[in-house]
């Protein structure tokens, strides 16, 4: 899933400076699971903002709603009738959701309440870790299901740097070295030959920016 965290309160508050009515829109998918932008977080942000405005002798009407998800037009349309009543919209979705919302309601200022961080997994309750950089050319088949692109900060494809420290990464004693993990996993699988060959330089050309994909079945319609 996409992992994000909420921006510092002061930063969000500064975005809506001068607004009297804002609509705070949560997202029911990834950011809800990672406790950054779901229904509960919408409630909390709304109360915090109201309170902060009140303390400054101002009044803020903060509307709250949480959509199934914000990366689908179908769900974004649900707020069609509401948006006009507000001075601005705060989206608590990932960066993609914020953009899609802003695109649909392009006459309203739309502000992001989150910093989108990575594609990752839930290690345990309240803790997530990055696992994929969406590089468009997956090498996991060779590396024992451990991603050198996302887990090694240098994205090294041909083995560890000299910084490995007791199996930890040179960046932090808290972080495992991706190449120690890969080596151990492949050793266990009896597949070390996978990484004895030299991996070619990554093809950044396949990471088209901005990326776009059309499913085969839908190509004619486009």
């Amino acid at each position, binding site marked *: 899933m996409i992992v994000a965290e909420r921006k510092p309160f002061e930063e969000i508050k500064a975005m809506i400076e001068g607004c009297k009515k804002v609509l705070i829109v949560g997202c029911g998918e990834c950011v809800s699971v990672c406790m950054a932008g779901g229904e509960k977080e919408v409630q909390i942000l709304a109360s915090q903002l109201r309170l902060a405005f009140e303390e400054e002798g101002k009044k803020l009407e903060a509307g709250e709603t949480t959509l199934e998800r914000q990366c689908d037009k179908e769900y974004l349309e649900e707020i069609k009738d509401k948006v006009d009543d507000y001075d601005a919209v705060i989206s608590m979705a990932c960066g993609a959701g914020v953009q899609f919302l802003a695109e649909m309601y392009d006459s309203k200022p739309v502000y992001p309440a989150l910093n989108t961080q990575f594609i990752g997994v839930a290690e345990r309750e309240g803790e997530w870790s990055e696992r994929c950089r969406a590089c468009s050319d997956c090498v996991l088949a060779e590396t024992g299901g451990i991603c050198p692109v996302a887990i090694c900060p*240098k994205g090294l*494809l041909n083995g*560890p740097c*000299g910084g490995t*420290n*007791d199996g930890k990464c*040179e960046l932090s004693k808290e972080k495992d070295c991706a190449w120690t993990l890969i080596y151990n996993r492949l050793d266990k699988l009896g597949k070390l030959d996978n990484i004895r060959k030299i991996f*070619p330089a990554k093809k950044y050309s396949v990471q088209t920016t901005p990326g776009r994909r059309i499913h085969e079945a839908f190509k004619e319609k486009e």
Partner: protein
Amino acid sequence: MAKAFKEALESGKFVITAEVGPPKGVDIEEMKHHIELLKDKVDGLNVTDNQSSVMRISTLPVCRLIQEAGGEPILQMTCRDKNRLALQSELLGAYILGITNVLSLTGDYVTVGDHVDAKPVFDLDSVLLLETIKGLEEGKDCAGNELTGEGRPTFCKGAIVTPEANPIEPQLLKFEKKIKAGAEFIQTQAIYDLDNFKKFMEYARQFDVKIMAGIVLLVSAGMAKYMNANVPGIFVPKDLIDEMASAEKGKALAKGIEIAGRMIKTLKDENICDGVHIMAIGKEGKVPDILAAAGLA
């Protein structure tokens, strides 16, 4: 005048290299002094590339200064700051200046240095950089395009290894890839435990590559302990730390020089490896003393 580094490597003599660290700023007097002091005493002078991710004068012009002074530069190249275009154009540029010794490195991560917010590149890695150099020698860039015109560049290609890395197996796997990718010489990370190093050399001897042991000058017992605790892949055994600690007040540096000299002498006399790479970080002026202590001056 220093003999060409490649020639020295191929001659089978015990090869000695040292290091020049470009400064952060344009005052190069001290660096020039070090170049003058060392150029005739060693077979090659490595020029570090934004060492420890700290922004400094770039390597190529410093290599040129060494060359003009009559020394033999070894261009260190990390993959941290340049993508494949920049690395290759730098290599071609080095070649036309006659700077042909290249040491391929991955490079420290950006956040260990003084520009923590910079974008880390790591487009290639140390293995792929070696392959890329090999490709240029064969007349092709790393995208497969032909180099134009007459003549092909040739380089003397080097890489590094960390014999004390933990775990060692992934490190050795990469070491073997570096040799496969064309490394002709290897300068190791600092070694202090000669028994461990001998074991590494027993393994490394099976490959057709020259190995130069990394010697980092100890300046105090505290430095040794600090490195053990904080520098990945460096292990100073207790007896050496004790020996450093036993030095009289004000004599620790002399003790460090004595130890470095003794280690070099043993490596050479017992024919353990093919040479040494002396890193006297911040104490480059002491390299001649180390060589004298090793009986090499």
